[in-house]
Protein backbone atom coordinates (compact mmCIF):
# COMPACT_ATOMS: atom_id res chain seq x y z
CA UNK A 1 0.00 0.00 0.00
CA UNK A 2 3.01 2.27 0.08
CA UNK A 3 3.09 3.11 -3.61
CA UNK A 4 0.51 3.44 -6.33
CA UNK A 5 -0.08 0.11 -8.07
CA UNK A 6 1.06 -0.33 -11.65
CA UNK A 7 -1.75 0.58 -14.00
CA UNK A 8 -3.29 -2.62 -15.26
CA UNK A 9 -3.08 -2.77 -19.02
CA UNK A 10 -4.62 -5.36 -21.29
CA UNK A 11 -3.98 -5.82 -25.00
CA UNK A 12 -6.75 -7.57 -26.92
CA UNK A 13 -6.76 -8.64 -30.54
CA UNK A 14 -10.06 -9.58 -32.13
CA UNK A 15 -11.00 -11.19 -35.44
CA UNK A 16 -11.19 -14.56 -37.13
CA UNK A 17 -7.95 -16.47 -37.59
CA UNK A 18 -9.25 -18.29 -40.66
CA UNK A 19 -10.32 -15.23 -42.63
CA UNK A 20 -7.23 -13.66 -44.13
CA UNK A 21 -6.70 -10.09 -42.99
CA UNK A 22 -9.38 -10.46 -40.32
CA UNK A 23 -6.62 -12.13 -38.30
CA UNK A 24 -4.55 -8.90 -38.16
CA UNK A 25 -5.68 -7.98 -34.64
CA UNK A 26 -5.16 -11.50 -33.34
CA UNK A 27 -1.64 -11.70 -34.74
CA UNK A 28 -0.73 -8.30 -33.30
CA UNK A 29 -1.95 -9.36 -29.87
CA UNK A 30 0.00 -12.60 -30.10
CA UNK A 31 3.19 -10.64 -30.83
CA UNK A 32 2.59 -8.69 -27.65
CA UNK A 33 1.54 -11.60 -25.46
CA UNK A 34 -1.97 -10.20 -25.31
CA UNK A 35 -5.36 -11.86 -25.51
CA UNK A 36 -6.57 -13.30 -28.78
CA UNK A 37 -10.31 -13.00 -28.83
CA UNK A 38 -12.23 -14.74 -31.60
CA UNK A 39 -15.97 -14.44 -31.57
CA UNK A 40 -18.36 -12.21 -29.79
CA UNK A 41 -16.97 -8.81 -28.64
CA UNK A 42 -19.62 -8.42 -25.93
CA UNK A 43 -17.49 -10.78 -23.85
CA UNK A 44 -14.88 -8.00 -23.75
CA UNK A 45 -17.03 -6.17 -21.21
CA UNK A 46 -15.78 -8.67 -18.65
CA UNK A 47 -12.25 -8.88 -20.06
CA UNK A 48 -11.48 -5.18 -19.74
CA UNK A 49 -13.62 -4.36 -16.76
CA UNK A 50 -10.79 -4.33 -14.25
CA UNK A 51 -8.26 -2.74 -16.59
CA UNK A 52 -6.96 0.77 -16.32
CA UNK A 53 -5.97 0.77 -19.96
CA UNK A 54 -7.30 -1.54 -22.66
CA UNK A 55 -5.86 -1.59 -26.16
CA UNK A 56 -8.04 -3.36 -28.70
CA UNK A 57 -6.80 -4.19 -32.19
CA UNK A 58 -9.19 -5.23 -34.94
CA UNK A 59 -9.18 -5.48 -38.71
CA UNK A 60 -11.36 -2.97 -40.53
CA UNK A 61 -12.77 -2.60 -44.00
CA UNK A 62 -13.34 1.07 -44.73
CA UNK A 63 -12.13 1.26 -48.32
CA UNK A 64 -8.74 2.78 -47.46
CA UNK A 65 -5.47 1.32 -48.70
CA UNK A 66 -4.70 -2.08 -47.18
CA UNK A 67 -2.42 -1.71 -44.19
CA UNK A 68 -3.74 1.73 -43.25
CA UNK A 69 -3.65 2.03 -39.48
CA UNK A 70 -6.26 3.91 -37.46
CA UNK A 71 -5.87 4.77 -33.82
CA UNK A 72 -8.76 6.07 -31.79
CA UNK A 73 -9.33 6.87 -28.14
CA UNK A 74 -12.77 5.41 -27.45
CA UNK A 75 -12.77 6.42 -23.79
CA UNK A 76 -15.08 9.33 -24.36
CA UNK A 77 -16.54 8.92 -27.83
CA UNK A 78 -18.00 6.21 -30.08
CA UNK A 79 -15.82 4.74 -32.78
CA UNK A 80 -15.77 6.77 -35.98
CA UNK A 81 -17.21 5.43 -39.21
CA UNK A 82 -13.94 3.99 -40.50
CA UNK A 83 -13.64 1.77 -37.46
CA UNK A 84 -17.29 0.76 -37.38
CA UNK A 85 -17.33 -1.23 -40.56
CA UNK A 86 -15.49 -4.08 -38.95
CA UNK A 87 -15.00 -7.10 -41.10
CA UNK A 88 -15.85 -9.38 -38.25
CA UNK A 89 -18.94 -11.52 -38.50
CA UNK A 90 -19.84 -11.29 -34.86
CA UNK A 91 -23.34 -10.78 -33.65
CA UNK A 92 -22.56 -7.41 -32.13
CA UNK A 93 -19.62 -5.54 -33.53
CA UNK A 94 -16.80 -4.04 -31.51
CA UNK A 95 -18.32 -0.55 -31.84
CA UNK A 96 -21.61 -1.80 -30.42
CA UNK A 97 -19.91 -3.68 -27.61
CA UNK A 98 -18.09 -0.48 -26.65
CA UNK A 99 -21.31 1.52 -26.62
CA UNK A 100 -23.02 -1.16 -24.56
CA UNK A 101 -20.12 -0.94 -22.12
CA UNK A 102 -20.47 2.84 -22.04
CA UNK A 103 -24.19 2.60 -21.33
CA UNK A 104 -23.66 0.11 -18.52
CA UNK A 105 -20.56 1.77 -17.06
CA UNK A 106 -18.39 -1.14 -18.04
CA UNK A 107 -15.55 0.46 -19.93
CA UNK A 108 -11.96 0.48 -18.75
CA UNK A 109 -10.61 3.79 -17.54
CA UNK A 110 -8.95 4.29 -20.90
CA UNK A 111 -9.80 2.46 -24.12
CA UNK A 112 -7.65 2.70 -27.23
CA UNK A 113 -8.74 1.03 -30.46
CA UNK A 114 -6.43 0.30 -33.36
CA UNK A 115 -7.91 -0.59 -36.72
CA UNK A 116 -5.84 -2.21 -39.42
CA UNK A 117 -7.33 -1.88 -42.87
CA UNK A 118 -7.61 -5.30 -44.48
CA UNK A 119 -8.08 -6.30 -48.06
CA UNK A 120 -9.03 -9.97 -48.14
CA UNK A 121 -11.50 -11.45 -45.69
CA UNK A 122 -12.42 -14.70 -47.41
CA UNK A 123 -12.09 -17.89 -45.45
CA UNK A 124 -8.67 -19.39 -46.01
CA UNK A 125 -7.10 -16.23 -47.44
CA UNK A 126 -3.52 -15.34 -46.55
CA UNK A 127 -2.57 -12.15 -44.75
CA UNK A 128 -1.80 -9.54 -47.43
CA UNK A 129 1.77 -8.15 -47.25
CA UNK A 130 0.67 -4.58 -46.53
CA UNK A 131 -1.40 -5.83 -43.61
CA UNK A 132 1.46 -7.96 -42.31
CA UNK A 133 3.63 -4.82 -42.31
CA UNK A 134 0.92 -2.89 -40.47
CA UNK A 135 0.75 -5.64 -37.86
CA UNK A 136 4.46 -5.11 -37.17
CA UNK A 137 4.00 -1.36 -36.98
CA UNK A 138 1.07 -1.57 -34.57
CA UNK A 139 2.83 -4.18 -32.45
CA UNK A 140 5.80 -1.82 -32.21
CA UNK A 141 3.67 1.17 -31.30
CA UNK A 142 1.54 -0.63 -28.72
CA UNK A 143 4.53 -2.43 -27.27
CA UNK A 144 6.38 0.85 -26.77
CA UNK A 145 3.49 2.82 -25.31
CA UNK A 146 2.71 2.79 -21.62
Amino acid at each position, binding site marked *: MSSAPEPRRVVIGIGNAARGDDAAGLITARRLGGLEHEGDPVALL*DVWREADVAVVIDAVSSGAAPGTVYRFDATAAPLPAQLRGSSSTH*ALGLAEAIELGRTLGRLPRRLIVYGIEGERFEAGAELTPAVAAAVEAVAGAVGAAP
Partner: protein
Amino acid sequence: MSTDRRTLNVDVLARVEGEGAMHVRIDGDTVADVQLRIYEPPRFFEAFLRGRAFTEAPDITARICGICPVAYQTSAIRAMEDVCGIAIDDGPIRALRRLLYCGEWLESHALHVHLLHAPDFLGYESGIAMAADHRAVVERGLLMKKAGNVLMAAVGGREIHPINVRVGGFYRAPTRGELAPAAELLERARDAAIETVRWTGTLPFPDFEHDHELVALSADGEYPIDRGRIVSSGGLDIAPSEFDDWFVEEPVAHSNALHARIRGRGAYLAGPLARFNLNFDRLSPAARETALAAGVGPTCRNPFQSIVVRAVEMLYACEEALRIIAAYEPPDPPAVEVLPRAGVGFGVSEAPRGMLWHRYELDAEGTILDARIVPPTSQNQLAIEHDLRAFVQRHVRLPDAELRDRCEQAIRNHDPCISCATHFLTLDVERT
Protein backbone atom coordinates in the same frame (compact mmCIF):
# COMPACT_ATOMS: atom_id res chain seq x y z
CA MET B 1 -52.62 -0.96 -54.48
CA SER B 2 -49.73 1.22 -55.41
CA THR B 3 -48.46 0.91 -58.91
CA ASP B 4 -45.19 2.49 -57.96
CA ARG B 5 -42.24 0.25 -57.73
CA ARG B 6 -40.41 0.92 -54.52
CA THR B 7 -37.19 -0.55 -53.40
CA LEU B 8 -35.66 -0.38 -49.96
CA ASN B 9 -32.06 -1.18 -49.32
CA VAL B 10 -31.50 -1.14 -45.63
CA ASP B 11 -28.88 -2.66 -43.43
CA VAL B 12 -31.66 -4.07 -41.32
CA LEU B 13 -30.35 -7.34 -40.18
CA ALA B 14 -27.11 -6.20 -38.69
CA ARG B 15 -28.02 -7.96 -35.48
CA VAL B 16 -28.22 -11.30 -37.21
CA GLU B 17 -24.88 -12.98 -37.01
CA GLY B 18 -23.22 -12.89 -40.38
CA GLU B 19 -24.68 -11.50 -43.49
CA GLY B 20 -27.07 -12.08 -46.30
CA ALA B 21 -29.99 -10.32 -47.88
CA MET B 22 -33.72 -10.59 -47.99
CA HIS B 23 -35.78 -9.77 -51.01
CA VAL B 24 -39.54 -9.34 -50.90
CA ARG B 25 -41.60 -8.74 -54.03
CA ILE B 26 -45.16 -7.51 -53.57
CA ASP B 27 -47.62 -7.23 -56.47
CA GLY B 28 -50.49 -5.02 -55.37
CA ASP B 29 -51.61 -6.63 -52.13
CA THR B 30 -50.12 -10.01 -52.83
CA VAL B 31 -46.74 -11.27 -51.77
CA ALA B 32 -45.26 -12.64 -54.98
CA ASP B 33 -41.91 -13.78 -53.70
CA VAL B 34 -39.73 -13.92 -50.61
CA GLN B 35 -36.11 -14.86 -50.90
CA LEU B 36 -33.33 -15.05 -48.38
CA ARG B 37 -29.94 -14.77 -49.99
CA ILE B 38 -27.23 -16.26 -47.93
CA TYR B 39 -23.54 -16.71 -48.47
CA GLU B 40 -22.44 -19.90 -46.97
CA PRO B 41 -18.88 -20.53 -45.98
CA PRO B 42 -19.19 -24.16 -44.88
CA ARG B 43 -18.85 -24.91 -48.58
CA PHE B 44 -15.41 -23.36 -48.51
CA PHE B 45 -14.45 -25.18 -45.34
CA GLU B 46 -15.51 -28.49 -46.82
CA ALA B 47 -12.97 -28.02 -49.59
CA PHE B 48 -10.37 -26.73 -47.14
CA LEU B 49 -10.71 -29.86 -45.01
CA ARG B 50 -9.88 -32.25 -47.81
CA GLY B 51 -6.32 -33.48 -47.49
CA ARG B 52 -6.02 -32.45 -43.84
CA ALA B 53 -5.52 -34.88 -40.96
CA PHE B 54 -8.67 -36.08 -39.17
CA THR B 55 -7.30 -34.64 -35.95
CA GLU B 56 -7.32 -31.14 -37.44
CA ALA B 57 -11.04 -31.04 -38.18
CA PRO B 58 -12.16 -29.78 -34.74
CA ASP B 59 -9.92 -26.71 -34.86
CA ILE B 60 -10.64 -25.93 -38.50
CA THR B 61 -14.41 -26.27 -38.29
CA ALA B 62 -14.52 -24.29 -35.04
CA ARG B 63 -13.73 -21.21 -37.10
CA ILE B 64 -16.77 -21.53 -39.34
CA CYS B 65 -18.87 -19.69 -36.80
CA GLY B 66 -17.78 -17.10 -34.27
CA ILE B 67 -20.75 -17.89 -32.05
CA CYS B 68 -20.90 -21.68 -32.04
CA PRO B 69 -17.41 -23.17 -32.28
CA VAL B 70 -18.24 -25.93 -29.78
CA ALA B 71 -21.07 -27.18 -31.97
CA TYR B 72 -18.75 -27.49 -34.95
CA GLN B 73 -16.05 -29.14 -32.86
CA THR B 74 -18.47 -31.59 -31.29
CA SER B 75 -20.10 -32.71 -34.53
CA ALA B 76 -16.69 -33.05 -36.18
CA ILE B 77 -15.23 -35.02 -33.28
CA ARG B 78 -18.15 -37.39 -33.06
CA ALA B 79 -17.97 -37.99 -36.80
CA MET B 80 -14.24 -38.74 -36.66
CA GLU B 81 -14.72 -41.11 -33.76
CA ASP B 82 -17.53 -42.75 -35.68
CA VAL B 83 -15.23 -43.40 -38.64
CA CYS B 84 -12.67 -44.89 -36.27
CA GLY B 85 -15.16 -47.15 -34.52
CA ILE B 86 -15.40 -45.28 -31.23
CA ALA B 87 -18.51 -43.91 -29.55
CA ILE B 88 -18.11 -41.87 -26.38
CA ASP B 89 -21.71 -41.86 -25.21
CA ASP B 90 -21.23 -41.82 -21.46
CA GLY B 91 -18.53 -41.46 -18.81
CA PRO B 92 -16.58 -38.39 -17.73
CA ILE B 93 -15.24 -37.42 -21.18
CA ARG B 94 -18.73 -37.30 -22.57
CA ALA B 95 -19.89 -35.37 -19.49
CA LEU B 96 -17.20 -32.77 -20.06
CA ARG B 97 -18.23 -32.37 -23.68
CA ARG B 98 -21.81 -31.79 -22.66
CA LEU B 99 -20.68 -29.36 -19.99
CA LEU B 100 -18.67 -27.36 -22.52
CA TYR B 101 -21.66 -27.34 -24.86
CA CYS B 102 -23.87 -25.97 -22.05
CA GLY B 103 -21.46 -23.03 -21.91
CA GLU B 104 -21.94 -22.36 -25.60
CA TRP B 105 -25.73 -22.52 -25.33
CA LEU B 106 -25.60 -20.02 -22.49
CA GLU B 107 -23.33 -17.63 -24.36
CA SER B 108 -25.29 -17.77 -27.59
CA HIS B 109 -28.80 -17.71 -26.16
CA ALA B 110 -28.00 -15.01 -23.59
CA LEU B 111 -26.77 -12.71 -26.33
CA HIS B 112 -29.67 -13.46 -28.62
CA VAL B 113 -32.44 -13.18 -26.05
CA HIS B 114 -31.30 -10.06 -24.22
CA LEU B 115 -29.42 -8.01 -26.80
CA LEU B 116 -30.76 -9.06 -30.19
CA HIS B 117 -34.31 -10.35 -29.92
CA ALA B 118 -35.84 -8.56 -26.93
CA PRO B 119 -35.26 -5.08 -28.43
CA ASP B 120 -37.53 -6.09 -31.34
CA PHE B 121 -40.43 -6.74 -28.99
CA LEU B 122 -39.94 -3.54 -27.04
CA GLY B 123 -39.44 -1.27 -30.03
CA TYR B 124 -35.78 -0.46 -29.55
CA GLU B 125 -33.48 -0.21 -32.50
CA SER B 126 -30.70 -2.01 -30.65
CA GLY B 127 -29.76 -3.76 -27.46
CA ILE B 128 -27.67 -0.73 -26.55
CA ALA B 129 -30.68 1.54 -26.74
CA MET B 130 -32.65 -0.97 -24.69
CA ALA B 131 -29.89 -1.22 -22.08
CA ALA B 132 -30.36 2.41 -21.11
CA ASP B 133 -33.98 1.78 -20.10
CA HIS B 134 -33.84 -1.89 -19.11
CA ARG B 135 -30.53 -2.10 -17.42
CA ALA B 136 -31.45 -4.94 -15.09
CA VAL B 137 -32.60 -7.10 -17.99
CA VAL B 138 -29.39 -6.58 -19.94
CA GLU B 139 -27.23 -7.09 -16.84
CA ARG B 140 -29.03 -10.38 -16.25
CA GLY B 141 -28.25 -11.41 -19.80
CA LEU B 142 -24.62 -10.49 -19.35
CA LEU B 143 -24.46 -12.52 -16.15
CA MET B 144 -25.73 -15.62 -17.96
CA LYS B 145 -23.35 -14.95 -20.79
CA LYS B 146 -20.49 -14.66 -18.37
CA ALA B 147 -21.43 -17.96 -16.75
CA GLY B 148 -21.16 -19.48 -20.22
CA ASN B 149 -17.81 -17.77 -20.81
CA VAL B 150 -16.38 -18.99 -17.53
CA LEU B 151 -17.56 -22.51 -18.21
CA MET B 152 -16.03 -22.42 -21.69
CA ALA B 153 -12.76 -21.15 -20.25
CA ALA B 154 -12.68 -23.79 -17.48
CA VAL B 155 -13.38 -26.73 -19.78
CA GLY B 156 -12.27 -25.50 -23.18
CA GLY B 157 -9.16 -23.64 -22.12
CA ARG B 158 -10.44 -20.40 -23.64
CA GLU B 159 -13.68 -18.48 -23.56
CA ILE B 160 -14.12 -18.61 -27.31
CA HIS B 161 -12.84 -21.25 -29.71
CA PRO B 162 -11.86 -23.85 -27.16
CA ILE B 163 -8.37 -25.16 -27.73
CA ASN B 164 -8.57 -28.00 -25.23
CA VAL B 165 -10.81 -30.34 -27.20
CA ARG B 166 -9.58 -33.11 -29.46
CA VAL B 167 -10.72 -36.25 -31.18
CA GLY B 168 -10.99 -38.78 -28.36
CA GLY B 169 -11.53 -36.27 -25.54
CA PHE B 170 -9.50 -33.42 -24.10
CA TYR B 171 -5.84 -32.47 -23.94
CA ARG B 172 -6.22 -31.81 -20.23
CA ALA B 173 -9.13 -32.42 -17.89
CA PRO B 174 -10.03 -29.61 -15.51
CA THR B 175 -9.82 -30.44 -11.82
CA ARG B 176 -12.91 -30.26 -9.61
CA GLY B 177 -11.48 -27.12 -8.09
CA GLU B 178 -11.13 -25.48 -11.47
CA LEU B 179 -14.84 -25.93 -12.10
CA ALA B 180 -15.84 -24.44 -8.74
CA PRO B 181 -15.90 -20.77 -9.86
CA ALA B 182 -18.09 -21.74 -12.80
CA ALA B 183 -20.49 -23.55 -10.47
CA GLU B 184 -20.81 -20.51 -8.26
CA LEU B 185 -21.64 -18.33 -11.25
CA LEU B 186 -24.02 -20.92 -12.68
CA GLU B 187 -26.08 -20.83 -9.47
CA ARG B 188 -26.61 -17.12 -9.99
CA ALA B 189 -27.20 -17.59 -13.71
CA ARG B 190 -29.89 -20.17 -12.95
CA ASP B 191 -31.80 -17.66 -10.83
CA ALA B 192 -31.32 -15.06 -13.55
CA ALA B 193 -32.63 -17.52 -16.16
CA ILE B 194 -35.80 -18.10 -14.16
CA GLU B 195 -36.33 -14.35 -14.12
CA THR B 196 -35.71 -14.13 -17.84
CA VAL B 197 -38.17 -16.93 -18.63
CA ARG B 198 -40.82 -15.08 -16.65
CA TRP B 199 -39.95 -11.76 -18.23
CA THR B 200 -39.90 -13.02 -21.83
CA GLY B 201 -43.29 -14.63 -21.19
CA THR B 202 -44.75 -11.15 -20.71
CA LEU B 203 -43.56 -9.78 -24.05
CA PRO B 204 -46.20 -8.97 -26.68
CA PHE B 205 -46.34 -11.86 -29.16
CA PRO B 206 -47.97 -11.51 -32.56
CA ASP B 207 -50.66 -14.11 -33.09
CA PHE B 208 -48.83 -16.31 -35.58
CA GLU B 209 -48.30 -20.04 -35.85
CA HIS B 210 -46.56 -22.28 -38.33
CA ASP B 211 -47.00 -25.94 -39.11
CA HIS B 212 -43.50 -26.87 -40.26
CA GLU B 213 -42.30 -30.37 -39.60
CA LEU B 214 -39.98 -30.01 -36.61
CA VAL B 215 -36.64 -31.82 -36.60
CA ALA B 216 -34.29 -32.24 -33.63
CA LEU B 217 -32.12 -34.77 -31.94
CA SER B 218 -33.45 -37.15 -29.35
CA ALA B 219 -31.53 -39.10 -26.73
CA ASP B 220 -32.80 -41.29 -23.94
CA GLY B 221 -33.51 -39.49 -20.70
CA GLU B 222 -31.88 -36.19 -21.57
CA TYR B 223 -32.60 -33.01 -23.45
CA PRO B 224 -30.61 -33.24 -26.71
CA ILE B 225 -27.38 -31.28 -26.86
CA ASP B 226 -24.30 -33.18 -27.92
CA ARG B 227 -25.64 -36.33 -29.55
CA GLY B 228 -28.74 -38.32 -30.40
CA ARG B 229 -30.92 -39.77 -33.10
CA ILE B 230 -32.67 -37.50 -35.55
CA VAL B 231 -36.42 -37.37 -34.92
CA SER B 232 -39.26 -35.26 -36.26
CA SER B 233 -42.84 -34.26 -35.52
CA GLY B 234 -43.71 -36.23 -38.67
CA GLY B 235 -42.56 -39.49 -37.16
CA LEU B 236 -38.98 -39.62 -38.40
CA ASP B 237 -36.59 -41.52 -36.12
CA ILE B 238 -33.26 -42.23 -37.79
CA ALA B 239 -29.55 -42.59 -37.06
CA PRO B 240 -27.26 -39.74 -38.12
CA SER B 241 -25.89 -42.06 -40.83
CA GLU B 242 -29.34 -42.18 -42.46
CA PHE B 243 -29.57 -38.41 -42.97
CA ASP B 244 -29.06 -38.61 -46.73
CA ASP B 245 -31.82 -41.16 -47.09
CA TRP B 246 -34.35 -38.69 -45.74
CA PHE B 247 -32.96 -35.23 -46.35
CA VAL B 248 -31.70 -33.53 -49.46
CA GLU B 249 -29.75 -30.32 -49.95
CA GLU B 250 -30.44 -28.47 -53.15
CA PRO B 251 -28.84 -25.38 -54.68
CA VAL B 252 -31.20 -22.49 -55.39
CA ALA B 253 -30.59 -19.64 -57.77
CA HIS B 254 -30.99 -16.77 -55.32
CA SER B 255 -28.63 -17.94 -52.59
CA ASN B 256 -25.18 -19.38 -52.22
CA ALA B 257 -26.51 -21.61 -49.50
CA LEU B 258 -27.95 -25.00 -50.23
CA HIS B 259 -31.56 -25.40 -49.12
CA ALA B 260 -32.29 -28.55 -47.18
CA ARG B 261 -35.64 -30.29 -47.28
CA ILE B 262 -37.11 -33.58 -46.22
CA ARG B 263 -37.38 -35.77 -49.29
CA GLY B 264 -40.92 -35.75 -50.61
CA ARG B 265 -42.12 -33.51 -47.77
CA GLY B 266 -40.35 -30.17 -48.12
CA ALA B 267 -39.44 -27.49 -45.60
CA TYR B 268 -38.72 -28.30 -41.99
CA LEU B 269 -37.61 -26.42 -38.93
CA ALA B 270 -34.67 -27.20 -36.65
CA GLY B 271 -33.60 -25.21 -33.60
CA PRO B 272 -34.90 -24.34 -30.13
CA LEU B 273 -38.59 -24.61 -31.05
CA ALA B 274 -38.07 -28.03 -32.60
CA ARG B 275 -35.99 -29.25 -29.65
CA PHE B 276 -38.52 -27.93 -27.17
CA ASN B 277 -41.59 -29.43 -28.85
CA LEU B 278 -39.95 -32.81 -29.39
CA ASN B 279 -38.26 -33.05 -25.99
CA PHE B 280 -40.38 -31.09 -23.53
CA ASP B 281 -40.65 -34.06 -21.19
CA ARG B 282 -36.85 -34.30 -21.03
CA LEU B 283 -36.33 -30.83 -19.64
CA SER B 284 -35.56 -30.60 -15.95
CA PRO B 285 -38.65 -30.29 -13.74
CA ALA B 286 -37.86 -26.67 -12.92
CA ALA B 287 -37.41 -25.81 -16.60
CA ARG B 288 -40.74 -27.44 -17.46
CA GLU B 289 -42.60 -25.73 -14.64
CA THR B 290 -41.09 -22.34 -15.37
CA ALA B 291 -41.93 -22.71 -19.07
CA LEU B 292 -45.55 -23.64 -18.38
CA ALA B 293 -45.91 -20.78 -15.91
CA ALA B 294 -44.62 -18.42 -18.62
CA GLY B 295 -47.20 -19.71 -21.06
CA VAL B 296 -45.21 -22.02 -23.32
CA GLY B 297 -45.28 -25.78 -23.60
CA PRO B 298 -45.60 -28.62 -23.93
CA THR B 299 -46.12 -27.51 -27.51
CA CYS B 300 -45.23 -24.10 -28.90
CA ARG B 301 -45.85 -23.28 -32.54
CA ASN B 302 -45.45 -19.52 -32.46
CA PRO B 303 -41.94 -18.67 -33.70
CA PHE B 304 -42.03 -15.33 -31.86
CA GLN B 305 -42.18 -17.28 -28.60
CA SER B 306 -38.82 -18.81 -29.43
CA ILE B 307 -37.43 -16.09 -27.17
CA VAL B 308 -39.14 -17.76 -24.21
CA VAL B 309 -37.96 -21.17 -25.35
CA ARG B 310 -34.36 -19.95 -25.53
CA ALA B 311 -34.70 -18.63 -22.01
CA VAL B 312 -36.02 -22.02 -20.89
CA GLU B 313 -33.06 -23.70 -22.57
CA MET B 314 -30.74 -21.38 -20.68
CA LEU B 315 -32.35 -22.44 -17.43
CA TYR B 316 -31.93 -26.05 -18.46
CA ALA B 317 -28.29 -25.48 -19.46
CA CYS B 318 -27.53 -23.97 -16.04
CA GLU B 319 -29.13 -26.88 -14.23
CA GLU B 320 -27.54 -29.47 -16.46
CA ALA B 321 -24.11 -27.89 -16.07
CA LEU B 322 -24.51 -27.80 -12.29
CA ARG B 323 -25.60 -31.44 -12.30
CA ILE B 324 -22.55 -32.46 -14.34
CA ILE B 325 -20.17 -30.44 -12.15
CA ALA B 326 -21.62 -31.93 -8.97
CA ALA B 327 -20.96 -35.47 -10.23
CA TYR B 328 -17.69 -34.66 -11.95
CA GLU B 329 -14.55 -36.75 -11.58
CA PRO B 330 -11.74 -35.83 -13.98
CA PRO B 331 -11.32 -38.44 -16.72
CA ASP B 332 -7.96 -40.15 -16.50
CA PRO B 333 -6.57 -40.23 -19.11
CA PRO B 334 -8.39 -37.17 -20.47
CA ALA B 335 -8.69 -38.71 -23.93
CA VAL B 336 -9.04 -42.17 -25.39
CA GLU B 337 -6.73 -43.17 -28.18
CA VAL B 338 -8.36 -42.94 -31.57
CA LEU B 339 -6.56 -44.75 -34.36
CA PRO B 340 -7.49 -43.76 -37.88
CA ARG B 341 -9.00 -46.18 -40.29
CA ALA B 342 -10.52 -45.89 -43.73
CA GLY B 343 -14.24 -45.30 -43.83
CA VAL B 344 -17.14 -42.91 -43.49
CA GLY B 345 -18.50 -41.44 -40.25
CA PHE B 346 -21.26 -39.15 -39.09
CA GLY B 347 -21.58 -36.69 -36.24
CA VAL B 348 -24.54 -34.58 -35.25
CA SER B 349 -25.21 -32.24 -32.36
CA GLU B 350 -27.59 -29.44 -31.42
CA ALA B 351 -25.95 -26.10 -32.11
CA PRO B 352 -27.80 -23.26 -30.36
CA ARG B 353 -29.56 -22.59 -33.70
CA GLY B 354 -30.34 -26.21 -34.46
CA MET B 355 -29.06 -29.51 -35.66
CA LEU B 356 -25.56 -29.50 -37.13
CA TRP B 357 -24.68 -32.56 -39.19
CA HIS B 358 -21.17 -33.58 -40.34
CA ARG B 359 -20.03 -36.43 -42.57
CA TYR B 360 -16.40 -37.32 -43.26
CA GLU B 361 -14.60 -39.88 -45.32
CA LEU B 362 -11.06 -40.83 -44.27
CA ASP B 363 -8.36 -42.97 -45.77
CA ALA B 364 -6.43 -45.51 -43.70
CA GLU B 365 -3.92 -42.85 -42.54
CA GLY B 366 -6.69 -40.56 -41.34
CA THR B 367 -6.46 -38.06 -44.19
CA ILE B 368 -9.79 -36.43 -44.93
CA LEU B 369 -10.95 -37.43 -48.40
CA ASP B 370 -14.34 -35.78 -48.23
CA ALA B 371 -16.23 -33.51 -45.83
CA ARG B 372 -19.85 -32.45 -45.74
CA ILE B 373 -21.35 -30.02 -43.26
CA VAL B 374 -25.05 -29.22 -43.05
CA PRO B 375 -25.50 -26.21 -40.76
CA PRO B 376 -28.80 -25.32 -39.09
CA THR B 377 -29.33 -22.17 -41.09
CA SER B 378 -29.36 -23.92 -44.45
CA GLN B 379 -31.84 -26.39 -42.98
CA ASN B 380 -34.09 -23.58 -41.79
CA GLN B 381 -33.87 -21.34 -44.78
CA LEU B 382 -36.97 -22.63 -46.54
CA ALA B 383 -39.00 -22.60 -43.34
CA ILE B 384 -37.90 -19.03 -42.64
CA GLU B 385 -38.95 -18.02 -46.15
CA HIS B 386 -42.33 -19.69 -45.65
CA ASP B 387 -42.82 -17.90 -42.32
CA LEU B 388 -41.93 -14.60 -43.92
CA ARG B 389 -44.23 -15.07 -46.86
CA ALA B 390 -47.18 -15.75 -44.55
CA PHE B 391 -46.20 -12.98 -42.20
CA VAL B 392 -45.67 -10.35 -44.91
CA GLN B 393 -48.96 -11.31 -46.56
CA ARG B 394 -50.77 -10.71 -43.31
CA HIS B 395 -49.17 -7.28 -42.91
CA VAL B 396 -48.93 -6.34 -46.57
CA ARG B 397 -50.58 -2.94 -46.13
CA LEU B 398 -48.04 -1.72 -43.61
CA PRO B 399 -45.66 0.98 -44.78
CA ASP B 400 -42.31 -0.37 -45.93
CA ALA B 401 -40.42 0.82 -42.89
CA GLU B 402 -42.73 -0.90 -40.47
CA LEU B 403 -42.93 -4.00 -42.61
CA ARG B 404 -39.17 -4.11 -42.68
CA ASP B 405 -38.99 -4.01 -38.89
CA ARG B 406 -41.51 -6.81 -38.59
CA CYS B 407 -39.63 -8.94 -41.09
CA GLU B 408 -36.44 -8.36 -39.24
CA GLN B 409 -38.05 -9.63 -36.08
CA ALA B 410 -39.57 -12.62 -37.88
CA ILE B 411 -36.18 -13.61 -39.29
CA ARG B 412 -34.55 -13.15 -35.92
CA ASN B 413 -37.04 -15.61 -34.42
CA HIS B 414 -34.86 -18.28 -35.97
CA ASP B 415 -31.53 -16.70 -35.05
CA PRO B 416 -30.04 -17.57 -38.41
CA CYS B 417 -26.31 -17.95 -38.31
CA ILE B 418 -25.87 -16.76 -41.82
CA SER B 419 -22.55 -16.20 -40.31
CA CYS B 420 -19.43 -16.63 -41.53
CA ALA B 421 -19.26 -14.40 -44.59
CA THR B 422 -19.56 -11.00 -46.18
CA HIS B 423 -20.63 -7.78 -44.64
CA PHE B 424 -24.16 -6.68 -45.23
CA LEU B 425 -27.59 -8.07 -44.79
CA THR B 426 -30.01 -5.91 -46.67
CA LEU B 427 -33.72 -6.10 -47.06
CA ASP B 428 -35.07 -5.25 -50.42
CA VAL B 429 -38.83 -4.68 -50.81
CA GLU B 430 -40.09 -4.41 -54.35
CA ARG B 431 -43.69 -3.32 -54.86
CA THR B 432 -45.32 -3.33 -58.28
